[in-house]
């Protein structure tokens, strides 16, 4: 192991600080604009009066409560289904033998190479023939069988010592019992890491929900926010920033609160 010289440490620290500052600037501006009256959007005066009026005004101008409900339902449905489906699939690929296994696995890996945007029209056709256009289920359906989750969990399951598996079977555990009692508990860090990626991706996803939803009852936050922030009539940055902060707050708060756990599980799952 090479030891850091003091110079290295200074360089690393200052580069880190610089990146952190760059990252925080837009957020800091959003907070500034959101908690001050619109007159102070571009005037940085420490004595500027504080207000929460932008938040109430944004909340009143669009049905954000409904959008929140839709988004929470959406990410919960997606994550729940993904975890069940992909754990089962990953277990099969990691520990079972069946004909065509490597071909199937290659196909699943292919899914990770295809940009979902290319499939917009095909997915739309499928949803239409299922009669699901403009439903929350339709936003989530194309993402249920996640190639990334299957791959990640398979790799995790492969690292679990076979001895544990065999010991459980000798004790009379069924196949699904082994999955539930041995693999799932040991795969938790990977699942947590994947859960974070999945939730933040679907919380922020825009194009597909925009296309497949038509009404307030199904639109998630991103689409609602975009429809709310139309530009021609003069944007009120204060109100838009307030709305943006509101919509991203749950994710931000969650991340700040559970930061340590997230970072640890990322390290263990090997996603960096």
């Amino acid at each position: 192991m090479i030891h850091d010289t003091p110079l290295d440490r200074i360089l690393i620290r200052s580069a880190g600080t610089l990146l952190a500052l760059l990252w925080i600037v837009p957020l800091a501006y959003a907070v500034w604009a959101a908690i001050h009256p619109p007159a102070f959007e571009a005037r940085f005066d420490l004595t500027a009066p504080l207000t929460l009026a932008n938040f109430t005004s944004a909340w009143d101008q669009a049905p954000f409560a409904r959008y929140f409900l839709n988004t929470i339902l959406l990410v919960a449905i997606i994550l729940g289904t993904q975890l069940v489906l992909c754990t089962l699939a990953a277990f099969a690929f990691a520990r079972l033998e069946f004909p065509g296994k490597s071909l199937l696995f290659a196909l699943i890996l292919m899914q990770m190479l295809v940009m979902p945007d290319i499939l917009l029209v095909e997915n739309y056709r499928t949803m239409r023939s299922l009669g699901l256009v403009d439903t929350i289920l339709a936003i989530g359906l194309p993402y249920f069988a996640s190639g990334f989750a299957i791959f990640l969990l398979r790799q995790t399951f492969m690292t679990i010592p076979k001895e544990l598996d065999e010991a459980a079977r000798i004790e009379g555990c069924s196949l699904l019992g082994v999955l539930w009692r041995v693999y799932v508990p040991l795969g938790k860090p990977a699942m947590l890491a994947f859960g974070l990626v999945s939730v933040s991706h679907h919380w922020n996803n825009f194009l597909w929900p925009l296309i497949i939803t038509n009404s307030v009852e199904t639109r998630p936050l991103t689409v609602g926010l975009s429809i709310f922030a139309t530009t021609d009539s003069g944007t009120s940055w204060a109100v838009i920033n307030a709305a943006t902060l509101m919509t991203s707050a749950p994710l931000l708060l969650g991340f700040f609160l559970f930061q340590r756990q997230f970072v640890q599980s990322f390290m263990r799952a090997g996603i960096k």
Partner: protein
Amino acid sequence: MKLRNVFFASSAIAALGTGASATDLEFYFPVAVGGAAADTIQALTEEYMANNADVKIDAIYTGSYADTTTKAITAVRGGNAPQLIISLSTDMFTFIDEDMIVAWDDFVTEEEQTDWIGGFYPAFMANSQTEGKTWGIPFQRSTPVLYWNKEAFKAAGLNPEEGPKNWAEMVEMGKALTVKDDAGNVTQWGVHIPSSGFPSWLWTGIVAGNGGKLADDTGTQVTFNSDAAVGALEALVALSATDEVMAPGILDWGGTPKAFFDGQAAMIWTTTGNLTNVRTNAPFDFGVGFLPGLQQNGAPTGGGNFYLLKGSSDEELQAAADFVKWVTAPEQAAKWTIATGYVAPRPDVWETDTMKAYTADFPQALVARDQLEYAVPELSTFEGPKVTQLLNSALESAITGQTEPKAALDGAQAAAEAILKPYY
């Protein structure tokens, strides 16, 4: 199992919908002037349904123009096209190219051809007809005008009732209106011509005011580097560079009304779609005038048209067309204009009592109508988004001083010709 139930249920509903009893229509609409205007469209749709029990219209607010176009194109390709959308008038050639719209001519009687389609202002129809057919019906149409702050005019010793009549006057007044504090920082600029995102729109007006034209009506030929166009761009660049009456760099569209309200700019160029917004929010008296031209009056039109999309039965399209006939009729169009400030697209709308009462109280609303006489179509060609983007990039590089106006426009012209070659 659940999925199948949903499937059967919805096919059953679809089967009912195609029965003789009722026609279900879908209608996507964007409102670029802010969400409140969406309520007006909902209210108009509901009024129509109350009077026509056999038609059910689902009016779907789809946010910005770009989002609406994306949704519509996907829906058409996915075999689930709405019957009706409002989209930019400049999308006409793109939609024809995509083979996704039908002409209105099949859904109007001969009488309506003259009375209804013939009744719109020719300036608005310029972006709505090609190859002898009518593809778009003007609805949320706008044109840019100049707004001036009467109080700032008074403070600068100018006559607050008279805006600039031509470009030279605008520069002259702009110099008087540009105010600096003791440290030499500008606290109020004379003019604000927004240039973020789509500078080509307002610039089309400057070119028209200089006697030039950017495209022909076939959508295949452009003339970005004519003398009139180069002169127009040089004049625009000079506002910041040598006249020093406008803030340098790219000026934001969305922030334009705000800069006006806050007194950061004494004259602004922006769409009439903002008239109601400015009227409600400006804390001072303001005047509205024609865009000041370099040699003559000139302004582009802009905004959205109704389009009929392919993929529905003739009965459904006919029902959609009938709705559009109703919503563009004088009384309804007057409500829409008053709610938003969009220019009423037909002379007979201005003759209604509602409109007369409105303009008597608020004569600024008449300026946009009177300017239509000098209006030119907004830039619209085949491969429209690409060609317009080329021009926008060229304008931005000239405005930010990276490229000389002539060189930037020559480059855009050459690139646009290459794109349009297959369409000659």
